[in-house]
């Protein structure tokens, strides 16, 4: 099956759905689409995942030109509150996310998504504004690369 529109939003929702499906490791409310407000809610050691809008890195037409292939890169950021030494917790959760994407190339059978892979994962820290040497959060920014097929039939110039 192919996608008919809105690849960006569809991919974001699909990533959220497959991560939320791992309820042993991720609380549903802590896997959001662009909503970072929960970071101030008192997470302690809980994982917090934010899926951000993606970047379209390539696009091409094929077939009767109503068929479009797109490659998207979506930043997915995993946060943990930095208290003392959160690396073990963070590393485990990082591996969980990598495994989830690797195990679900179509992001849970989403129509139009033909492949997805984590193409990069970078460690970083969030420091308090005007603060000292201690980070408030340790975070990993994943780049989830998705190839998707869209079909524009009976619409616009293909009507």
């Amino acid at each position: 099956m192919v996608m008919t529109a809105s690849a960006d939003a569809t991919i974001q929702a699909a990533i959220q759905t497959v991560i939320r499906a791992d309820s042993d490791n991720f609380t549903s409310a802590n896997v959001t689409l662009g909503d970072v407000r929960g970071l101030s809610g008192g997470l302690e050691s809980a994982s917090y995942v934010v899926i951000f809008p993606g970047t379209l890195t390539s696009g091409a037409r094929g077939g009767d030109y109503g068929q479009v292939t797109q490659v998207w890169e979506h930043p997915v950021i995993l946060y943990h509150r930095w208290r003392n030494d959160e690396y073990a917790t963070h590393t485990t959760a990082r591996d969980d996310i990598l495994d989830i994407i690797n195990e679900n190339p179509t992001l849970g059978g989403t129509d139009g998504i033909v492949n997805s892979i984590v193409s990069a994962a970078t460690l970083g820290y969030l420091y308090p504004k005007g603060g000292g040497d201690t980070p408030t959060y340790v975070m990993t920014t994943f780049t989830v690369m998705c190839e998707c097929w869209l079909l524009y039939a009976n619409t616009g110039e293909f009507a």
Partner: protein
Amino acid sequence: MALGANSYGTVAEVAALTPRWTSSGSFGATTQPTESHVEKFIDRVSATLNVFLAEAGFSIPVTQADCVLMLDDFVVIHVGALCDAVNGAGTYVPGENNNLRGRTSFEIIRKSAGDFVADHADGLEKLGASRTYSMTDGLECRTTDAAGDTITPFFSRKQMGNQPIEWDT
């Protein structure tokens, strides 16, 4: 552990200001700081405030409702800043010279409490906070003249046949 009887503010009010350091909005045994640490912060900032209030003649703890709200606010905000500091953030974080200007958090709280009480003692009293004065309160003695030179008293003890009496003997 509970808060001291003379303390102002509550742990929940501090948590409301600093939710990031809580566990789903509440301080507990595993949060940083823990609930008992926050209680101690509250007791100590309250004690600092009470010292200055007592120095100004107020009965502590102040119980007049409006005054208490203001004192609660003073304590909760400063304790919130201490909770930030525990996590390397905020005004009192060690090493944050721009904010601390080289002073410790205690120095800031002590100065802030002293200024606060001195500036608003009249307001606290007019709202009904219980305040008592010593018998010599308000008595002043001018010791220099307009030029700033020391004034020599016109009269002194034992002058003109004066016989001082030692009342205590």
